[in-house]
C-alpha cells in the first residue's frame, strides 16, 4: 500500500503515546514534537518511563496507543522511519569480542553504507573523538568512557536526523561526562539532527535548554529551563526540579492526568 508523502519539517513527532506493562500503564498520553537541529533534554527519575519511550521510538516495542513519526514517516513503515534514527542505548550494546572498527563496520552494513564510504566515515569520526589509535583494539580493552564514545560515533555514522541518547553518561567520571555532553551539544548545529537526551542528572542541563519532564509515564512539563524557573519562581535548577517533581508526584497520586505538552 502506498504511504502518504511525509512531512519532513518535524524530525520527531510523537502523539498520545501509550505502553503498558502487565496491564499497568508505563507510558501514557506522551506527546512531543522536535524540529531538526533541536536539542531536548528528557528529564525524569529512574522508572519514569524514559527507556520505555526510547524502545517505542526505535521500534523495539509496539505502542499500545498513539503514533510516532520520524522525518514524517510512521513507524509502521520501518525501512523509512528507522533509517534516519540514531540511538545510544542505556545498556551496553557493543560486541566486546570485536574491535572498535569491526563494531562500527557492522553498524554501517546494517544501514547500507558501502564499505569504502563506511571506512572513511569511521576514520574521520574516530579522529574527531581521539580514538583513531584504538580502532583495531577489542572493545573489551576500552574503559567505560571510551566505549560510550564508540557508541556515540556509531549512532551518528549514518548522519541521522534524530539522535536518541538514553542516559549515556551514567557511570562515567565528571570530565568524561562533560566531554561527551559537549560533543553531543554540537551535533544539532554541525549535523542538523534533532537530539533527545534522556537523563536524571540536573547538572547536565543549561538554562537555555528545552526540557521535557517525565514522571511515572506522563509528561508533566515541556519548556525552556529559564522559563520554567521564572514560572515556578525558583532560584536554580535543583530547586526547580524539586518543585516540579513534587508537583508531578501530587498530580500522579491524585490520579488526575496532566495535559501533555503544558508547562506548570
Amino acid at each position, binding site marked *: 500500500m502506498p504511504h502518504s508523502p511525509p512531512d519532513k519539517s518535524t524530525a520527531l513527532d510523537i502523539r498520545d503515546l501509550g505502553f503498558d506493562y502487565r496491564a499497568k500503564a508505563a507510558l501514557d498520553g506522551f506527546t512531543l514534537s522536535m524540529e531538526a537541529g533541536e536539542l531536548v533534554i528528557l528529564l525524569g527519575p529512574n522508572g519514569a518511563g524514559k527507556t520505555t519511550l526510547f*524502545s517505542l521510538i*526505535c521500534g523495539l516495542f509496539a505502542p499500545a496507543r498513539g503514533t510516532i513519526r520520524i522525518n514524517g514517516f510512521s513507524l509502521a513503515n520501518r525501512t523509512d522511519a528507522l533509517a534516519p534514527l540514531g540511538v545510544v542505548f542505556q545498556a551496553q550494546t557493543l560486541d566486546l569480542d570485536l574491535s572498535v572498527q569491526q563494531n562500527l563496520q557492522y553498524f554501517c552494513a546494517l544501514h*547500507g553504507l558501502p564499505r569504502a564510504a563506511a571506512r572513511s566515515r569511521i576514520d574521520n569520526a574516530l579522529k574527531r573523538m581521539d580514538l583513531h589509535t584504538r580502532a583495531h583494539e577489542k572493545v573489551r580493552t576500552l574503559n567505560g568512557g571510551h566505549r560510550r564514545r564508540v557508541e556515540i560515533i556509531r549512532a551518528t555514522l549514518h548522519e541521522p536526523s534524530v539522535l536518541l541518547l538514553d542516559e549515556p553518561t551514567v557511570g562515567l567520571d565528571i570530565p568524561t561526562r562533560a566531554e561527551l555532553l559537549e560533543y553531543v551539544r554540537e551535533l544539532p548545529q554541525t549535523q542538523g539532527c534533532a537530539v533527545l537526551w534522556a537523563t536524571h542528572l540536573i547538572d547536565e542541563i543549561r538554562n537555555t535548554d528545552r526540557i521535557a519532564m517525565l514522571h511515572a509515564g506522563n509528561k508533566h512539563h515541556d519548556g525552556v529551563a529559564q522559563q520554567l524557573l521564572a514560572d515556578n519562581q525558583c532560584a536554580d535548577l535543583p530547586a526547580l526540579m524539586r518543585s516540579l517533581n513534587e508537583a508531578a508526584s501530587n498530580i500522579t497520586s491524585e490520579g488526575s492526568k496532566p495535559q501533555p505538552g503544558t508547562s506548570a
Partner: protein
Amino acid sequence: MKLHRRYLTSVSGIVMRELLRFVHQRERFLAALVRPLLWLIVFAAGFRAALGLAIIPPYQTYISYEVYIVPGLIGMIQLFNGMQSSLSMVYDQEMGSMRVLLTAPLPRWYLLLCKLLAGVLVSLMQIATFLVMARIVGIDFAYTGSLAALPVMLLSGIMLGSLGLLISSVVRQLENFAGVMNFVIFPMFFMSSALYPIWKMRESSEWLARVCELNPFTHAIEAIRFAFYGQLNILSMSILVVCTLLFFGIACWSYDPARSFRAGRTAPA
C-alpha cells in the same frame, strides 16, 4: 541509501560479525566439536557390537554403526547450535547486540532470517571440521556428497534455529540452556533416527517409532543422510521445507523484544 543495497550489506555484515565472533571464541568452537566427536569415537565404538544394522536406503551395502550415525551427529551439531543461538536472541545474553540489529531499517523477519543464516554458516564450519576429524579417525563416510548435502544442511539449520527461536519466544519457562537441553534437545535427538534407524526402534516400541516418524528432526537427518549419498528423500525434504517455513513464520510472529524486560530481569526505566 538504496534499499536493495541495505538488504545486501546487512546480510553480509551480520554473517561477517558472526564469523568474527566464532573466530574469537575458540572455546565455543571446541565445545561444539568435542560433543559429536565423543559420540562418534567413544559411544559408537561401544555401541556397534550391540546394534546390528540391516541394509536400508540410502545405503547399498552393510555399513558400520559409526557410518550410520554421522548424519545424526551432523544434526546434533545443528540442533545444539540452533537452540543455543536462538535462546541468546530472546534472552539477555545478546540483548544489547540484538537491540542494535532490530533497530536497523529493515523488516524484522529479514533481520531474524539473516541472524539465523549467520548461525547456520557457523554450524556448517563446525560440521566441516567434524567431517575432517571423522575422516582422520578412519570413518568410511560418503564425504564426496558434502556439496550435495550443503543446501539441505542450510535448510535444516534454519529450521532448527527457527524452532529454537519459536520455543524460546513462546515457552516462558525455558529461559536457560539447561531447560532447553532437557526438554527440547535431548527428546528431539533421542526420539529421532539420529542414533538408530526407525525400524530398529519399532522392534522395541511401536508408539516410539511413530513419535520418531513425526519428529521433524528425524526428517532433517534423513534428508541430510540421503543427500550425502546423492539421493533425494522426497518425503523428508518436503517435511523439512514445510517445517522451515512454518517454524520461521510463527517464530517471526511471536518474537517480541519486550519479552526479556517483561521477564523482570532488566525492567526498563
